[in-house]
């Protein structure tokens, strides 16, 4: 039975990815201008243009072009950057780890603090803590990330300089890029000082990026916990004389997790969108900043590559969330 559900979800993923590639392909064709000319520049000769067009298959019918495009994609070929001719896939690969480090740090902060605030609020509803936390959460969901980032930057890096202004690590302190994750690379290079420096650089961007998801998680955790805490089995657990912490964490939170997991999944798109803005503000050399820079340089090959990669990441994580959901609630595996 589980295989049926998982198989269906995998098929759906393949279908969505195929659609995504089709949308990106069609949109690229809608960009005004000749792709060959974009690639070779305005002084290219007519023969060069014709040769490149033939090479790229631009004269062939659209479905054939899509087939060729799909074939290249499946081999991991995202084309070449119009700016420097480098393969887009490797350009993206270099930046993906920076975004991953930032996004994982932000998600950790958002999940831990968001769930903690939500649980405490639900256990003591209408208390001072609850009121303050929910007010903050409401402010958090309405916050323009790019504004919050700038204000935090001004406050904590300029006015009271306790944290670095931007970047991933001080100039000249970069460790050898083994994993691309600055925290891991600094540790592997054996420098605790460099590790702490990298951590300091991560704090502001990660908190900025975490704000909106944290607020959403806190709100959903509170409402989900409030509902669960009124259930009979919680009353039974209390009546059995279990300690309150066990009742709240083992009995209530576990059952309140389902909607929280859904929200975590939905937040991922938000996090990736937020990364584009956060990376721009903090000069974080990740994928988000790369896509904006590429767009400014009209490097469509790079833009489409990034968008595809973002969509794939989102689709895969949504799948993981679906699986986690099914693991938490057996009913979904059976009826899903």
């Amino acid at each position, binding site marked *: 039975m589980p295989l049926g559900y998982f198989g269906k979800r995998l098929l759906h993923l393949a279908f969505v990815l195929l659609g995504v590639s089709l949308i990106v392909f069609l949109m690229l064709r809608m960009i005004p201008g000749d792709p060959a000319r974009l690639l070779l520049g305005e002084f290219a000769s007519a023969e060069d243009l014709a040769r490149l067009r033939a090479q790229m298959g631009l004269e062939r019918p659209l479905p054939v072009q899509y087939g060729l495009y799909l074939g290249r994609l499946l081999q991991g070929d995202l084309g070449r950057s119009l700016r420097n001719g480098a393969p887009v896939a490797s350009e993206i690969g270099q930046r993906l780890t920076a975004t991953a480090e930032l996004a994982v740090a932000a998600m950790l902060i958002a999940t831990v603090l968001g769930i903690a605030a939500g649980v405490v609020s639900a256990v003591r509803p209408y208390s001072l803590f609850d009121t303050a936390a929910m007010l903050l959460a409401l402010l958090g969901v309405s916050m323009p990330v790019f504004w919050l980032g700038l204000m935090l930057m001004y406050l904590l890096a300029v006015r009271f300089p306790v944290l670095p202004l931007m970047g991933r690590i001080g100039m000249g302190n970069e460790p050898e890029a083994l994993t691309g994750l600055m925290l891991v690379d600094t540790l592997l290079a054996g420098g605790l000082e460099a590790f702490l420096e990298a951590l300091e650089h991560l704090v502001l961007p990660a908190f900025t990026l975490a704000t909106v998801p944290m607020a959403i998680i806190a709100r959903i955790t509170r409402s989900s916990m409030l509902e669960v805490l009124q259930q009979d089995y919680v009353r039974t657990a209390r009546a059995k004389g279990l300690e309150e912490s066990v009742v709240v964490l083992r009995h209530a939170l576990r059952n309140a997790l389902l909607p929280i997991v859904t929200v975590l999944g939905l937040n991922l798109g938000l996090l990736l969108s937020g990364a584009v803005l956060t990376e721009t503000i903090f000069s974080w050399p990740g994928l988000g900043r790369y896509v904006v820079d590429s767009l400014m340089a009209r490097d469509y090959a790079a*833009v489409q590559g990034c968008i595809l990669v973002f969509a794939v990441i989102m689709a895969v994580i949504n799948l993981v969330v679906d699986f986690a959901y099914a693991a938490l609630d057996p009913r979904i595996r059976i009826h899903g």
Partner: protein
Amino acid sequence: MAEWEPVAGLLRSKSATLGLALIAFVLGVALLGPALAPHDPFRTAPLERLAGPSAAHPFGTDSLGRDILSRVIYGARISILIGLISVSISLFPGTLLGLVAGYFGRRLDSAIMRAMDMLLAFPAILLAIFITAILGPSLPNTMIAVGIVYIPHYARIVRSSVLALKEQLFVQAIAHLGGGHGRILFRHVLPNALPPIIVYATLGMGTAVLQAAALGFLGLGAQPPQPEWGVMLSEGRQYLQIAPHVAAFPGAAIFVLVLGFNLLGDGLRDVLDPTLRSM
């Protein structure tokens, strides 16, 4: 008087009242713009550049010496307009697609919803960025891009309401009496599917304002010298270390308006559609 019940409920809700007040404030500022603005929002004064808040310039001046308060006031018009137009662009096609998909079901339903899934596969701002890249960066194109991005959200919400309504006795009765599809859909199903649409559209106004400001901030939306809040923030970013007020005020304006829509949306949801509370 039953139809006034939701309005009374809304006014009893503290968050909705505060939200309404914030929106009314920004709307008032937008409507009265020229009368309220102390200066011409486009007039540059190089000698007064980057001046901090003062009696003459309560929000200070920007890098060209323009009065930031006046620019924030004019920006209110742009942001309200962005919210209204972007939401309309997603609302109408989204609702129609959701109605058709939910009501007719089968192949039409799968075709429409699979297409919506594909659009939903992109992170919102990236899809908006991609669309503006194709259309070219400008304010109208920003509204179109933000509008297109949220079409699938409305389609999904409307579809799920229609699926439930379709099974209701009154809809089946009208169908048996010979009511045409159009009549059933628009006279009977749509009005009953409205509450979640209204809630989502209100929250969506806030999202649209945020997204458009983000695009402006990235240089892909409204273009300088337009006093759009995101563009102003982006200009202020360069002077953050010496003149933080240039970025602070436009950002605060975005925050106030988005907060207003979120508060009102929350309040509306509690009154109109309590089942959506977990959204």
